[in-house]
């Protein structure tokens, strides 16, 4: 039932080995002529002005957390969508539709709550 991953492993080793060898070879035997123009940002590129890994302001945290919560609920919607037709064939279309409507209503109650609490205000 589980497929053999042997060929994939082999290909992986070959790919990494080949790519690594090429990179290593250019670094070792390639000519190195550095001048200021060559090291400039390319055409309309902008010089970096700050560390890209700087801390975000904590006010974004709340939005991020709420996003995760609502985002993850999608995993309950996908199996529902996958089995919708089977239910419809069994004559339970309205039932399964209302199930999801109920689920969404609970989610929306939570959404209404955070909206009213002002959790999504940026400023």
């Amino acid at each position, binding site marked *: *039932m*589980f*497929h*053999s*991953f*042997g*060929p994939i*492993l082999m290909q992986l080793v070959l790919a990494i080995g080949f790519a690594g060898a090429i990179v290593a070879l250019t670094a070792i035997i390639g000519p190195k002529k550095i001048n200021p123009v060559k090291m400039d940002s390319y055409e309309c590129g902008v010089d970096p002005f700050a560390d890209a890994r700087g801390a975000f302001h*904590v006010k974004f*945290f709340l939005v991020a*957390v*709420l996003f*995760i*919560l609502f*985002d*993850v*609920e999608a*995993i*309950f919607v996908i*199996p529902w969508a996958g089995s919708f037709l089977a239910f419809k064939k069994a004559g339970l279309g309205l039932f399964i539709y209302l199930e999801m409507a109920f689920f969404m209503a609970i989610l929306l109650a939570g959404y209404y709550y955070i909206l009213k609490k002002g959790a999504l205000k940026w400023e």
Partner: protein
Amino acid sequence: MPESLHIFQITETHYIVLSVILFCIGTAGVLIRRNALVIFLCIEIMLNAVNLALVTFSRHMDQNRGEVFVFFVMAVAAAESAIGLSLLIVLHRQKKTVDVDEINTLKG
């Protein structure tokens, strides 16, 4: 498949062993690391080890019960991480640290 490649045959046992290894890494991390955030990440590793085991068993028995269980575990893990991170932020505001050794107001 050539006979010589037979050692590469991946069975469900491999997945379970991997899951146990991941779980142990997570447990060790929780016990060793002192940063609350890292401890929390280690717990997430443990939960994902569980997910791997559940999916493997589910696939092995050709059912989808375990896969459905994984959905619940994921949803719960998301809810937990929201609560946990919020608690960490509240703590950091008061104490300016997330080191569990320095969080020691409660003593008897």
